[in-house]
């Protein structure tokens, strides 16, 4: 019988690689009976989805629009580029 600690590990690992069948079965048996681990699994899945979505939104430039470079950083970058261009 798996302990909650082992289950938390398997819940995490199942997102990183395919678990062997027997581990998957044990994991599901535990999850069906343990509401705490079930809650942990749901939280981990939500974190997984949100992080992925947020990462993609930033890449497509549809989030965090308010974050901008400071004006002096911008000027510094231009000066550095200028000095390297010549």
């Amino acid at each position, binding site marked *: 019988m798996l*302990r*909650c*600690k*082992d289950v*938390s*590990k398997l*819940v*995490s*690992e199942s*997102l*990183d*690689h395919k678990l062997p069948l027997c581990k998957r079965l044990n994991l599901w048996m535990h999850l069906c009976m343990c*509401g*705490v*681990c*079930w*809650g*942990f699994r*749901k*939280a*981990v899945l*939500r*974190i*997984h989805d*949100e*992080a*992925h*979505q*947020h*990462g*993609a939104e*930033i*890449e497509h*430039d549809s989030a*965090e*629009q308010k*974050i*901008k*470079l400071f004006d002096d*950083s*911008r000027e*510094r*970058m*231009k000066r*550095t*580029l*200028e000095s*390297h*261009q010549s």
Partner: protein
Amino acid sequence: MDDVTAAENREALEPIAWVDQYGDYLYRYALSRLRDGEAAEEVVQQTFLAGLQHTDQFAGKGSERGWLLGILKRKIVDFIRQRNRTSSLADEDGGDSSEAFFDRKGNWKPELRAALRRPLDSLEREEFWRILRGCLDALPTRQADVFVLREMDDLSTEEVCKDLEITASNLWVLMHRARLRLAMCLKSRWEQETC
């Protein structure tokens, strides 16, 4: 024909204009991955310089922004590898932090159980991300970095291991610790805010 187009495109590149055109976008991207304003600025600067030195590699296919983003991604990975080189797996984390969450028998500590059972469904996306960001900042750097590459960038286990020069089982351990801490932090911070 393609050569001519590429040459024309090369001539059309205006590196100084990149700062105004793409600076904010690249900075946002870098900041979201590195969580450190100074570091983000540094990699954006490096990206522009590398772009300037390698304008000949911009084939004119695809967008300038996409090309610069590709460079930035490599700079971010280099930066992350560098900043984690000095810390070893064990010393950063103070050993296995999961002891904080489980009793000696390996069950969840009683005081955590109610929070874990409570669903997060009513937590809106924006709110969720705001809290999670704060929780990421509270993680040891290496854990947070691995989490970001794996979850935000959706890199495969193999890619992250290669980029950070760690083994797959190291990666799984780091991800487990990160997810444990993030889940607990998220639940407890949300609870504090709603009470």
